[in-house]
């Protein structure tokens, strides 16, 4: 069967466009998540026709398929389950058209997020969603996971920036979902496709909105001796009607680690720091800077540092962006979580998160998008210590449960993928999940598109022999 699939793919896409050598397959067995799967074959389309041909070939041979961009996803969304054909979109990486007047661009799914912003920079524009993996992740992957980033607080996540998506549906037909007109007649299929993690088809061409670069940008570092004060300041800023472009928090441990690593001038003895970015027009930004500074001081900040120039601003951000590098130097392994709680619950949930880490005897750090309550508890550990994975899992599940209990959700930007699909019942009732199952079945009645993702086993009709996530797959 595999030989026939490969022959079909080579026929449709050209020789050497599909491979199944053991080494090639091993390289596509996982993304940046921690679970590994196994691919039956991997192929490298160059344009939309290739993708359609690959999906058609997979269907003909009853093989599932999964699209993959740069493989930077942290939830295992691109991990090949049920021995699928991996359709790698990284060679479809052209920026097809930039319409400066209408502030939009058509791109292929393999275009890197940062490359897009660079391509439009000469026109004073940028693409707003900026996940931490911005330099490496693809727009196609961003669409699949509805990616976020620090600057999504004011400008919204990927779904707010995708106008239209040309897709290959799971039945190998093509469709344009959404469009350049503001509204399309009928259901917002584009809206539900974004964030569907490859289970509703594969994007082959994407129209995105571009934003004008704000003329004034100010970045502030607020220094607190109590993390509660920092969290209260976050709420106060929002309640005061200031909507920063970004509002990030780092706790004591991570601040020290970052400072040791980067030397950005972060206060080593702070209990928490806030990084606040305000942008827009000059006077409004100045007023916001004053308001944020006053609020911070009123809520017990020790110091407010406003970056004096672009170099200092870059340095402050370098600290934030180097957080994971700093951590890697503390312990060999880390597990990064992603959950959202209502902003007003930040203090309570953070306390609970630290308590859970203590009880599980794990080191925990927090660096996260405080402005929208998007927590990223980070457990650092050494996987070679016997039994540590069990404790990491236990802590992770307890943290997510605590977040949900506080009125939060399982994921703010990483997606559900494989990692959290079995935790979905924490947030959704069986009826909720059944409805989502019927919805994805409407797109993919045969269950061939990225199987075993997003929804827990038993949520979709026609799934046979779906196993729980194999424990042995953890690496």
């Amino acid at each position, binding site marked *: 069967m595999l030989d026939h699939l490969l022959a079909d793919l080579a026929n449709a896409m050209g020789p050497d466009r599909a491979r199944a050598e053991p080494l090639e397959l091993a390289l596509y067995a996982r993304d940046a998540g921690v679970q590994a799967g196994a691919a039956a074959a991997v192929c490298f389309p160059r344009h939309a026709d290739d993708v359609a041909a690959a999906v058609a070939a997979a269907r003909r041979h009853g093989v599932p398929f999964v699209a993959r961009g740069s493989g930077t996803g942290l939830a295992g969304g691109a991990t090949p389950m049920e021995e699928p054909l991996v359709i790698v979109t990284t060679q479809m990486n052209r920026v097809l058209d930039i319409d400066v*007047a*209408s*502030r939009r661009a058509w791109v292929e799914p393999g275009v890197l997020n940062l490359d897009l912003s660079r391509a439009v920079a000469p026109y004073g524009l940028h693409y707003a969603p900026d996940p931490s993996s911005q330099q490496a992740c693809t727009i196609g992957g961003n669409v699949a*996971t509805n990616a*976020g980033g620090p600057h999504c607080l004011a400008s*919204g996540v990927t*779904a707010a920036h995708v106008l239209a998506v040309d897709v290959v*549906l799971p039945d190998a037909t093509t469709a344009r979902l959404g*469009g*350049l*007109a*503001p*509204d*399309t*007649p*009928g*259901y*917002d299929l584009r*809206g*539900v496709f*974004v*964030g569907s993690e490859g289970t509703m088809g594969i994007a082959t061409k994407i129209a995105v909105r571009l934003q*004008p670069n704000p*003329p004034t940008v100010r970045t502030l570092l607020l220094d607190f001796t109590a993390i509660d004060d920092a969290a209260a300041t976050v*709420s*106060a800023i*929002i*309640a005061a*009607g200031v909507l920063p472009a970004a509002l990030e928090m780092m706790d004591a441990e991570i601040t020290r680690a970052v400072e040791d690593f980067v030397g950005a001038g972060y206060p080593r003895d702070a209990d928490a720091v806030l990084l606040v970015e305000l942008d*827009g*027009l*000059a*006077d*409004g930004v100045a*007023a916001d800077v004053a308001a944020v500074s006053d609020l911070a001081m009123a809520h017990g900040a020790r110091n407010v540092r406003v970056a004096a120039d672009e170099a200092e601003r870059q340095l402050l951000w370098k600290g934030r962006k180097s957080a994971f590098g700093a951590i890697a130097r503390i312990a060999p392994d880390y597990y990064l979580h992603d959950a*959202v709680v*209502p*902003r*007003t619950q930040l203090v309570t949930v953070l306390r609970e998160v630290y308590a859970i880490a203590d009880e599980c005897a794990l080191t925990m750090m927090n660096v996260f998008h405080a402005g929208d*309550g*998007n927590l990223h508890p980070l457990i650092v550990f050494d996987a070679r210590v016997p039994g540590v994975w069990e404790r990491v899992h236990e802590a992770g599940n307890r943290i997510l449960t605590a977040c949900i209990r506080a009125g*939060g*959700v*399982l*994921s*703010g930007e990483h*997606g559900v993928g494989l990692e*959290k699909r079995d935790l*979905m019942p924490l*947030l*959704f009732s069986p*009826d909720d*999940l059944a*409805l989502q199952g019927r*919805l994805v*079945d*409407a*797109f993919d009645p045969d269950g061939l598109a990225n199987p075993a993702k*997003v*929804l827990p086993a038993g949520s979709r009709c026609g799934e046979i022999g779906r196993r729980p996530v194999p424990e042995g797959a953890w690496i």
Partner: protein
Amino acid sequence: MELREVAHEIGAPLRDGEHVVVTGAGTHDAVGNPTLATCTRLRVPSGIVTYEPADLTVRVWAGTPVRELQATLAEAGQEVPLDPRDPTATVGGVIACGLSGVRRLRHGPVRDAVLQVDAIDGQATLFKAGGPTVKNVTGYDVPRLLVGSFGTLAVMLQLILRCRPLPAASAWYRVSSPDLPGNLRTAMLRPAAILWDGRDAWVLAEGNEQDLAAEAEAAELGEPVDAAPPLPDAAHRGRISVDPAQLGALAIRLRAISGLRWLAEVGVGTVHVAADDATTLLAARTGAHECGAWMLREAGGDGCDGFGTALPHLDLARRVKAAFDPRGLLAPGRVPL
């Protein structure tokens, strides 16, 4: 009353297999296609359930009038970017019809404001979709699918909406503009609206007061004017959705239709049209089709089709409909499936 009780009560006709349609203020009854006259009319409660200003979220019953919601939010210096033509419209009505307001250029479409929906499907089963937080990618984005689905997929009971701080200041400006005022969009950082009727352009700026003045001066907008231009109103109305890059081409066609009044949202591509007779309105639809656009009927039109076009990807749309409402009980006919 508890959500579950309401769901049970409202779901009764569905359990009995009746065709149903939700009615709020009735301000959107003529938008799109009419439903069967024999439908049982459902009413959803009104009122704010929870509001936490520091979370920038509000949970409301779908039957809450937009005006009432905005008044409560304004007390905390916030708003939701819902700008229905008639402020007595209900939150559920605006969202079910997917009608974005004229400030879309800055605030985005209504679909970006909906975080969570509690609703019942065609089997009267209560379900929750989305999540209560401002950022969430847990599961499929069902709320976006419900926005603009005209009640054909579910009966929305409660919604959690994303709020925004009210702008510190806002001002309308009016300039003479016989040509498409495309330059205004780039002359300002993020105008809230640029409206154009073929003779004049109106610009809505929001933000810091000094910034507004500076931008207005730089863009040569003159002094602020008292009020926004009224949306064209008449017995026969529609809204055209056109690729904003094709707005100029559409304007040429609309100008040629005598008796047609129109107001275009520059940079967005929504064009509000009104006429005293159905024929003129339908001429606007023809003009829209010639530009690759389409027109949603909002009022009048004398029995013309509400959409004037087949839904794209009809098979897929039908399967989606069946996933929510396999018996086809919800707002039958409202969307041309």
